[in-house]
């Protein structure tokens, strides 16, 4: 577990609140999806909250993030509005994309969030491009690209990281390694134990971190973001974690060893961090319970907002294909 000493109580509780809000968002989405009425696929990040919370805590307002199909947590941690997120998950007009994107394509330009993505690993190139824009303009922004272990086997991963290296771009690659590319275990898709080792091929640092330890994630992310902002180029951070559910809701994840799954559940990042906070005297269990209760109430209201938002008008189908219309 990373160290809590250098952070104030507000920062510590913000990290906790962030994780709890993500978990609650995902649980609400999960239940609603099973109940029916929420279309499409749903890829939950339950169990991986510490990565979103830890990384986002050190980004500036002007920085960019790009994410994957498993991106709810990233947007929430970045300051996204859960009302608009749920509305998007329901395909409604008040959603971030007016209902045109859904869970896999939420974007929020007001938070420098250049989109979740339905193509595995697409964020790697897009985040690299946003980082190029920052370097080109000299505006000192940093881009963070989130993607999973499966992405690292795509050629695009190689092309983007190599380009970022030679152009010395201000980008941080956050590899959320939950052990499976859909159902394909890491041992079947790579000979490497640590995927961060791949960074050596590009000549920049690769760091392994416990992705279930929010303080440890925050620490390595802070170092990488500082390095990027200071002109030191990219870093690849491999955050080892575990998804509590299958690849998507409907995937029972029978391909995973039940004992391994049970062991990882015991390492749930939220209770682990709660224990650090309470045992270290930073806060009380009652205070954490209040955070939990507030998050539940917030998401109860948010999902209701989303569910009650109207569907887009049918005329929306053909709008925004092109900027300026036409064609």
């Amino acid at each position: 577990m990373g160290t809590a000493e250098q952070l104030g109580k507000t920062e510590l509780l913000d990290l906790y609140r962030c994780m709890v809000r993500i978990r609650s968002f995902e649980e609400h989405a999960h239940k609603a999806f099973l109940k029916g009425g929420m279309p499409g696929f749903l890829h939950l990040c339950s169990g991986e909250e510490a990565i979103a919370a830890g990384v986002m805590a050190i980004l500036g307002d002007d920085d960019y993030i790009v994410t994957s199909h498993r991106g709810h947590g990233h947007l929430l941690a970045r300051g996204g509005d859960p009302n608009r997120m749920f509305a998007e998950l329901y395909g409604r007009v008040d959603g971030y994309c007016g209902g045109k994107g859904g869970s896999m394509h939420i974007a929020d330009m007001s938070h420098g969030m250049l989109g979740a993505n339905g193509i595995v690993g697409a964020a790697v190139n897009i985040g690299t491009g946003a980082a190029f824009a920052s370097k080109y303009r000299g505006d000192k922004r940093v881009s963070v690209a989130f993607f999973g272990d499966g992405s690292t086997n795509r050629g695009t991963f190689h092309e983007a990281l190599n380009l970022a290296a030679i152009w010395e771009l201000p980008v941080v690659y956050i590899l959320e390694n939950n052990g499976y590319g859909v159902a394909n275990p890491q041992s079947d898709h790579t000979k490497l134990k640590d995927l961060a080792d791949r960074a050596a091929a590009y000549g920049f640092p690769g760091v392994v971190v416990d992705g279930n330890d929010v303080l440890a994630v925050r620490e390595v992310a802070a170092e990488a973001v500082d390095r990027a902002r200071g002109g030191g180029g990219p870093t690849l951070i491999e955050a080892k974690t575990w998804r509590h559910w299958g690849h998507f809701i409907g995937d029972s994840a029978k391909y995973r060893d039940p004992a391994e799954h049970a062991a990882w559940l015991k390492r749930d990042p939220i209770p682990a961090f709660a224990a650090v906070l309470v045992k270290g005297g930073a806060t009380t269990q009652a205070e954490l319970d209040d955070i939990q209760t507030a998050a539940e109430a917030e998401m109860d209201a948010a999902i209701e907002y989303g569910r009650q938002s109207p569907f887009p008008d049918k005329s929306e189908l053909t709008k925004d294909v092109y900027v300026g219309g036409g064609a």
Partner: protein
Amino acid sequence: MRTISYMQAVAEALILEMRRDSDIYIAGEDVGKFGGSFGVTGPVYKEFGASRVLDTPISETAIIGTAVGAAAAGLRPVVEILFIDFLPIAGDELFNQAAKIHYMFGGQVSCPMVVRTAIGAGIGAAAHHSQSLEALVCHIPGLKTIAPSTPADAKGLLIAAIRDDNPVVFLEHKLLYASKSEVPEGDYVIPIGVADIKREGADVTLICYSAMVRQCLAAAEALAGEGISAEVLDLRTLIPLDKEAILASVAKTGRAVIVHEACLTGGFGGEIAAVIADRGFASLKGPIKRVAGPDTPVPFSPALESEFIVNADKIAAAVKTLF
């Protein structure tokens, strides 16, 4: 008016726009120090240097994928994919990302970028450096596709493409690079989506674009000697398609022959034929003809490659079947 080459016209458009807007950068394989494999970007690099004309590794997905990210973050990339044959390598970045982010993100994000790429056969470059894959691009909503046939059109349309807030694929036929014609100096913009009658005629409309415009003009000249007056309609832009210009010309002549170098099946000519059949059927005096490449890869041997490429004789022969 001065006369310059197609290649010089493209470079001039790039230079003028880059002087006007510092958000424009160029990236691609050997576009900088080497000057571009066809020599197009050499003068641009000379003026703007490596900070705005960036050599990339041989990494098509990174060239287009990073352009998408840079465009989303506010820049206006003009990237080069050396041959259109390499464009499918970056299929995700162009078809799934650039084309869709404006729509799927509900209009929040735009992707103002240009992908310049060379098309066409005729230099003995065989199956992997000679294709005309414009139909693949035209099929994807969100992309615009431009295929100019003259230096003036290349300049005016490239400037329009760079100023457009959408992803535009700009097709330069490699056989046209050395061709010369009068090109207006200074700021010269041709609106995207407007076809141009390159030769007026009364009896048949030859609908074409890119290098096939020259072949159609040659065919029209030959046909004139045989008493057939052919109109040559240069589409210039494929998406958005100037359907009204096509229908107006066919309404006038009553006959339509669609010409492209790309393979026949699934080629863009089928779409043009469908537009005419749907909305211009009443004015037709005969069947709509398509003159296109055969459904084969582009062969290497000069004897076979010349057989692959549509030429004026084949066009004229197709026209004569309508009379």
